[in-house]
């Protein structure tokens, strides 16, 4: 861990009219770290994530990212072209529903190759080789490279979405419920895969979930949200094994009951 955060979130607030989406959230994420965000439905997890990833403009606050070229920059105030460039190079976003993050009318290889072509790859053979390699890394058989994702199972679609995001070697991955809506056994395999990729690539990640098993497995640190605010944050094991806030205690105990 270096002493310079990769991402520094400062006092982010976002309202929907008079309604609170998220309120005054701050945290630092260091290179190679995985931050989990948990909380009940409607607690503001997605709102916060979308504010960080540039999909939503926060009402207040800064999202400072340590860019390769110019060091720390506030991505909220940088120009849209710069922000969009970040989102297809150094950032990745994995949606809960694979169809929101995939092009369903394009082959698996084309889906993986898109980000490469977006940053200027113009050699078909090279693009294909990289796509094949990435399909292998997410455990999709190379013979499926020309098939459309609509012919894939839910778990495969999610793995394809991950490959498509990681092919350009991003440094920061945002994930919103990446295992949501999948069967338990499929979830386990996906989590395993994610854990391997995060470790091998030294990725930093912010993972939104309401599944405490997911954060237990993937997250170094944890933030607990309630009604748009962070009520507790700390090392994952500490928060889960010795929750301080009453809401976190409830959350942890309800999991234990399941």
């Amino acid at each position, binding site marked *: 861990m270096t002493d310079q955060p990769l991402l520094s979130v400062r006092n982010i607030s976002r309202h929907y009219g008079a309604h609170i989406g998220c309120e005054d959230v701050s945290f630092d994420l260091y290179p190679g770290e995985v931050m989990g965000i948990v909380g009940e439905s409607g607690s503001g997890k997605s709102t916060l994530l979308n504010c960080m990833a540039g999909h939503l403009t926060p009402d207040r606050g800064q999202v400072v990212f340590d860019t390769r070229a110019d060091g720390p920059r506030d991505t909220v105030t940088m120009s849209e072209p710069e922000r969009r460039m970040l989102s297809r190079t150094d950032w990745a976003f994995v949606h809960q529903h694979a169809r929101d993050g995939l092009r369903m009318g394009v082959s698996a290889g084309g889906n993986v190759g898109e980000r490469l072509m977006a940053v200027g790859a113009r050699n078909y053979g090279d693009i294909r080789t990289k796509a094949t390699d990435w399909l292998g890394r997410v455990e999709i058989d190379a013979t499926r*490279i*020309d098939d459309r994702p609509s012919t894939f199972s839910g778990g495969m679609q999610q793995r394809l979405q991950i490959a498509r995001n990681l092919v350009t070697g991003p440094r920061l991955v945002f994930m919103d419920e990446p295992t949501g809506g999948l069967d338990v056994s499929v979830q386990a395999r996906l989590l395993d895969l994610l854990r391997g990729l995060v470790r091998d690539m030294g990725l930093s990640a912010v993972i939104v979930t309401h599944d405490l098993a997911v954060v237990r497995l993937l997250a170094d640190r944890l933030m607990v949200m309630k009604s748009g605010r962070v009520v507790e944050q700390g090392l994952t094991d500490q928060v889960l094994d010795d929750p301080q806030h009453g809401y976190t205690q409830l959350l942890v105990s309800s999991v234990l009951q399941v």
Partner: protein
Amino acid sequence: MTEQAYNFAYLDEQTKRMIRRAILKGLAIPGYQVPFASREMPMPYGWGTGGVQVSAAVLCPEDRMKVIDQGADDTTNAVSIRSFFERTAGVETTTSTAEASVIQTRHRVPEMALSEGQILVYQVPIPEPLRFLEPRESETRKMHSLEEYGLMHVKLYEDIARHGHIATAYAYPVKVEGRYVMDPSPIPKFDNPKLSDCAAIQLFGAGREQRIYALPPYTSVVSLDFEDHPFEASKPDHPCGLCGAEDSYLDEVIMDDAGGRMFVCSDTDFCEARRLAGHKGKDAA
């Protein structure tokens, strides 16, 4: 209604001014799609209402007009548009590419190199080259303004993955002056090289979609491709059966019930001129 009831070239002066402004803007930003308020024309969409409006806006009484459809001057579409301008503008018409000052076309670029002072008007059904993969107009507009064209290559990638080569044969996407990606209208890709460095003004009109775009003379137009799958301006590998031309775009024509067929120039004016000059193909009577 008598023919005198029409304004010159059918459209009122106000409308023509509005269209000319869009054309000028298009010429100032080559390849950029300029929105315009398309008017109802006395013909259905799909019959070149965009091209007709552009032609109407640029025509002068002293112009000589040529109209082609798939290279031919004598198809229903070409004949009806030509007679439309004969009646509403009273301009002279011609089938000769060399003698025309304004040429409206659907699906072809004439074989003969165009010259300065000529205007080529293309009828365009779908002006947005990114539509195939990104149906949201708000998003395609952003992609153009930020030069995010990776998606165009995804389309070509899909072609190669599926067919082993770039199978797109019509409306093959191009990049204009190193900036805007443009749909050249459904011309065969054989015609793409003719768009580049062309001496004539090239105007593109999409009526239903309400877009005009343009290439000023001598604009650089490059067909998109991959290093290892370079663009090829291919055509059927035959000479013309009537005039023997080896370098013109050909249509395949069924000759009889027995399945006899021959290849002939799609540009009828080009073919006729060659035959008049004494060239003869193997199928010529």
